[in-house]
């Protein structure tokens, strides 16, 4: 059985109305209903961080948010990070520091790191690791990711 609803939200700065199922998570709505596939599913239970988005400025796992809950909310995904001027310093630092290999965790890391730098513009290495511990990366051993985040903080 499908049970559809219309949700109105602001997604990456643009007001958007979309059709979703009552059962949809925000992650499913973003990927399968809206077509914003930059946000990734890694575990679907809040343990990998690949689906990280900002909801009203706050870092959340979009797999653990019901689509119905974003009615009226402001959501930022990886697709909404770059500006008219180009990549943000975090994105640039990830490229320069080779902070991604396969790239599947990268959207979640960028969004989570953005939230970190918004909350704490000059994190220590420990603070960056602590904040990002909910984002799993299996390729890099985190070394270059942490370096990129700390470099972006300096920018």
């Amino acid at each position, binding site marked *: *059985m*499908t049970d559809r609803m219309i949700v109105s939200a602001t997604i990456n700065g643009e007001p958007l109305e979309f059709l979703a*199922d009552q*059962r*949809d998570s925000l992650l*499913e709505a973003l*990927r*399968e209903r809206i*077509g*914003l*596939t*930059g*946000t*990734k*599913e*890694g*575990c*679907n*239970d809040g*343990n*990998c961080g*690949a689906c990280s988005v900002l909801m009203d400025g706050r870092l959340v796992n979009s797999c653990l948010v019901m689509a119905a809950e974003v009615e009226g909310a402001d959501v930022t995904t*990886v*697709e909404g*990070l*770059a500006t008219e001027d180009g*990549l943000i310093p975090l*994105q640039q630092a*990830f*490229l320069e520091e*080779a902070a*991604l*290999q*396969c*790239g*599947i*965790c*990268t*959207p979640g890391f*960028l969004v989570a790191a953005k939230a970190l730098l918004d909350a704490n513009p000059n994190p220590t*290495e420990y603070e*960056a*690791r*602590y904040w*990002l*511990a*909910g*984002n*799993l*990366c*299996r*390729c*890099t*051993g*985190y*070394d*270059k*990711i*942490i*370096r990129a985040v700390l470099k972006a903080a300096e920018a």
Partner: protein
Amino acid sequence: MVATEKPDSYQVVGTRPIRHDGTDKVTGRAGYGADYQAAGMLFGRVLRSPHAHARIKSIDTSKAEALEGVRGVITNADFPQPDDSQVEIGEGATTSARWMLDNVLAGEKVLYTGHAVAAVAAIDPHVAEDALDLIEVEYEVLEPVMDVREAMDENAPVLHEFLRTEQIASAFGGGEMVGAKPTNVAKFLEFKAGDADAGFEEADVVVEREFTTTMAHQGYIEPHNGSAFYNKDGHVTIWSSTQGAFGVRDMTAGLLQVPVSQVTCEPVEIGGGFGGKIGIYLEPLAALLSKQTGKPVKFTMTRQAVLEATGPTSGTYMRVKVGAKNDGTLTAAHVYLVFEAGAYPGSPMGAGAMCALAPYQVPNAHVEGYDVVLNKPKVAAYRAPGAPASEYAVESVMDEVAQQLELDPMDFRLKNAAVEGSRRPDGAVYGVIGNEEVMEVVKSSEHYRSELQGENRGRGVAMGFWFNVGMESSAYASVNADGTVSLSLGSADIGGTRASIAMQLAETLGIAAEDVKPQVVDTDSVGYTMVTGGSRTTFAGGWAAYESAMDIRRQLEERAAAIWDVDREQVSYGDGGVTGPADDDGNERSMTFKELAGQLAGSGGMIQGRADVNSMEAGPAFAGHIVDVEVDPETGKVDILRYTAVQDAGTAIHPSYVEGQIQGGVAQGVGMALTEEYFYDDDGRMLNSSLLDYRMPTALDLPMIETHIVEVPNPGHPYGVRGVGEVPIVPPAPAIANAIADAIGLRMRDLPMSPRAMLEELLPDED
């Protein structure tokens, strides 16, 4: 191939350009398999077995088919039934088509919890999931076999009535049937060098220990996916995150029993593989359901299914015995390995056996290995398959021998180091290798020489070896009028190989890395290319790029000769352009690559280079790691304070991604060492099939990982590349075990060395 000394004059190789696919991957634009979307697309879901071992008595799909929104339901019986022929599954391994199909959808029996039983396609993902609840499967539950030693017992329940033990001579290649009775022991491997018994007689010190490891998963963050569209003309297009698009094409065509030309695999990005995304799970289901429904069908796997039903690496039982003289000279070794294959034969026992003693000259060695089926998922390749386990056991014993002899662990290793010309116990003779060089760098490193202070802290070292493989890769390069080159490749880019391959083309042509546009293309648009695996992609892909650049250079020389109207032999390519004989005014003729590219259209047309390389040789890789740990004796927890990894890369094409491979391998090795394991209950159900309880290291579990790249160029490659991806996962577990022993005097011989396991050793027995 031409042997190369590493010149100082590389322009591109050894630099760190931004990867060509980078922007797509930091903006969310890159398309991974699960991102596939199409109008009218159906969503697929898989029903999985709740039992570890059961006979399927019946499957009734009628209620599921009747559910509103369901468009198709399939079981094993809907596939054309295969014969018992063998099919290639990548990296030289083969399996029977029957086993492959039965692993995709169970046939007569389910052989592990999570084994796929039926598949559904519906208009909505939630509806597809609802339909699974409506499929009725009647099982006759059988006793599961969950321990590899029990599975070898002749009274153990047998998984496959037709299975007989096969004796094999090496990890690569077949053997002969030696068993007469039904058994779970699929394969037996044995090789001997010298006389092990006599070698132990000569020894002043002999250490023999037992080890176990549990299954460990590759843990790629992207679950498996597979989408397909079966066109009305019978042509199937597949979108799947895979390490090898050609392999997926061949295997899917095999199961559908259609010619390979009827299947095209689209090049989608892949979110990590580490060996686990070489086989097929969902692609044939999507294809068959698309055929039935006429619609595109997309399957994505749950994390639970990834852990329960895709290939981890084998759990093992091992015994290692090493003998040495008082001066530290090794005299003999005996290695006994039993590897879990999972539900169908094919563990990496052979590679584990061949790697076990690889860093050393062991005059007398006896190595035995067993490949044993049991009611766990069919294992898949996982980064240096087999080596982390067997080398963990050997490196732990080597450390103990050095300790008993009161020798510095690196001095002991250096004394016995395998060098060019050394013969491995399996018979292979090394060419130019960097083993000793790596050991020397470890020994002289600031980390190794530094003093480690503090209570409950210790330092450990370990070596690692992996063969690396070559095999077939293709490249197609076309020169553009603006002086750039479009490069088509067949290798999935999992970690920056577009860049590392493009750089070798750029180096060969003398142009900038940024002037190459590498693209991964579909299986109809480039020549056959083997999997991204075996640490082979930068090696073989780069070689193909080099050959295609040489092809372009030859054509450019011809074209310049024509433009200048001089003899072909008078023109040569070098330093990023062509030079020719002096003109009538005595001025030397020359054109840069860019200048000549701009003249191609008007002088006969554009130029393309192509190449297909197929090398059965590759450059072996050695690694040496140093780790400092602190143990909390009250909780059994091990914290990693400092980590240094030294590795011979041959030539580091893009050092940042070489470092990244090393650091990633270390992280996986640390997980294997300390926290990752498969928990099964007595009924064979996996208890920790989530990323909450399958504990992969987080950013907070690791320090920065220092890397030292050693470059002993591989004479068998135009740029000296060896391959770097796999070997760094090998040393972490033994290095950490040795560090724990140094810290608190406790030798841990079972992986993972979890706090629970540590406390078992540290606490007195319950009263």
